[in-house]
């Protein structure tokens, strides 16, 4: 008898594994989104108190009153880390948003526009991908005078090519799909096909692509500020906190470097998880199982 698993044919029995998978995905998405909002909001809530120098509490290791310890000027590391993260979040938001917009515009025009336009845009994409990201960001940041605007411009101009290529490939494939050709022969205009046929397909791709753009943008922003670009004295970015902490490593205050980096890691990981699970919700087959 090869009755591996006898399955009762009625579908009403609540199968424990099904609820679990869907429930688990929704819970994860909610957690990731809540964590990110907490970070963004946290920057405003904690206010200035923690950031002011207070020489009485210098170099204190992590304790109950100061969970992430204090630095060489007595500033509470928790407040500084959260401020830094919310700045990185804002910069990531601006950079990822703009580059995603550029990618949408260029991706669509190169796929739907004429042959010449397509070759120019693909060549431009290759040009931007020809130079390593970080070197290009340094160049752009330097050109913009090294301030925070330089960092945002740098991160923005290096992240649009990958998403453009993805969107262009998707539109090219859709444009020659059978149902689009049929629609054209049924008398529908090019514009009608683009809005009614292509857009519904592009929306999930674009949204997931946008969310997965955040981690890269934030990591590069932190890297560039770590290297010394975009130094803004009043609002400390994560990169700045970490680069300053380097001087005190050998002095033994390890917590200055460890916790900010870990916080950045968790924030970036939250974006990754959010992006992946949303893709799973949109189209179960295409996501990594």
């Amino acid at each position, binding site marked *: *008898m*090869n009755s591996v698993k006898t*399955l009762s*044919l009625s*579908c009403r029995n609540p199968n424990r594994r099904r609820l679990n998978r*869907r429930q688990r995905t929704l819970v994860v998405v909610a957690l990731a989104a809540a964590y990110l909002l907490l970070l963004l909001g946290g920057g405003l809530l904690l206010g200035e108190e923690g950031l002011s120098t207070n020489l009485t509490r210098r170099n204190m290791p992590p304790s109950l009153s100061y969970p992430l310890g204090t630095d060489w000027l007595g500033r509470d590391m928790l407040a500084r880390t959260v401020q830094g993260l919310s700045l990185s979040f804002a910069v990531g938001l601006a950079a990822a948003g703009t580059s995603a917009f550029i990618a949408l515009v260029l991706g669509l025009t190169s796929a739907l526009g004429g042959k010449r336009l397509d070759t120019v845009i693909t060549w431009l994409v290759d040009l931007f991908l020809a130079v390593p990201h970080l070197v290009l960001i340094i160049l752009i940041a330097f050109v913009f005078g090294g301030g925070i605007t330089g960092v945002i411009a740098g991160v923005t101009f290096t992240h649009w090519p990958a998403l453009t290529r993805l969107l262009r490939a998707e539109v090219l494939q859709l444009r020659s799909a059978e149902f689009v050709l049929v629609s054209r022969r049924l008398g529908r205009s090019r514009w009608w096909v683009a809005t009614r046929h292509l857009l519904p397909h592009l929306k999930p791709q674009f949204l997931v692509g946008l969310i997965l753009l955040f981690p890269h943008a934030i990591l590069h922003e932190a890297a560039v500020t770590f290297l010394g670009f975009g130094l803004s004295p009043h609002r400390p970015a994560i990169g700045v906190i970490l680069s300053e902490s380097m001087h005190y490593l050998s002095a033994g205050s390890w917590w200055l470097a460890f916790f900010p980096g870990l916080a950045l890691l968790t924030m970036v990981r939250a974006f990754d998880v959010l992006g992946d699970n949303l893709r799973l919700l949109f189209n179960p*087959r295409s996501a990594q199982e």
Partner: protein
Amino acid sequence: MKHQEAITPLLEVSDLSISFTQYTGGLRQKTIRAIVNLSVNVKPGEVLAIVGASGSGKSLLAHAIIGILPGNASVAGKMVYAGEPLTPARQAALRGREIALVPQSVNFLNPLMRVGAQVRSSALNGNDAAVQREIFTRYHLAAGTEQLFPFQLSGGMARRVLVATAAAGGAQLIIADEPTPGLHPAIVRETLAHLRELSTAGRAVMLITHDIIAALETADRIAVFYAGATVETAPVTDFRSEGELLRHPYSKALWQALPQNGFRPVPGCQPSLDDLSCGCLFAPRCPMASPHCLTAEPALRSLRGGEAKCHHAA
């Protein structure tokens, strides 16, 4: 055609059910039942054809017998091979040795591996290079073919190589899954002739196809597949003239709907896969349907040398 009833079947499948749990958008889960209480048997030295619409789950039967169903499939029912139950462990032992699959097209061959090497892997007894060359010459494949890659094979050559992989293993049960899609009629006839040769050599051949014409030319018995189950198994001689010798109303409808017979269709269409109600699945379209058919699912009973799954079949 030898008298078939006396020989005990090599493979006996009874009340086999296969269903899948699939995730749709928004991660809602759906259970799809591809095969529902299917019973069929294959005898050595015989070609049994399973005929049904393409994409209706027939090749799942082949995968269930060989034991290579995907992870999210759940199987119920009984399968007996050569008198003993076909447990997953036994399937693993028999796969490739006693039970062989002839797949549908050339992309079932490893694109980066020469064709000769792939056939050799299934030639288990004796020196595999010699067995492979002997098989290739028997199937009129030029000596150089073994060095070619799958993408270099023409339609006909690909078919012969695929049949060769099954024959090389010395398997007793050969399952051909849709071997004749969109091929030149000459190649189709040649492929079916090869399967015929294998059965006259004493092996059991199960031919799964949607092309009823090919089945009629080759098979000894034909099992008609409808909505996840075999509704009738009949010797090929019953398929003639008006189809009056046939038992199940659906096989009659199928025979009469053929262009060369009457081209007269029966209204309605196959029930979709996930809302199979109890009772006879052909009832809504069946001219002889009675209230009893709507409630009780008919059992497969033998009738005049064949089998039918219908309360009123005569």
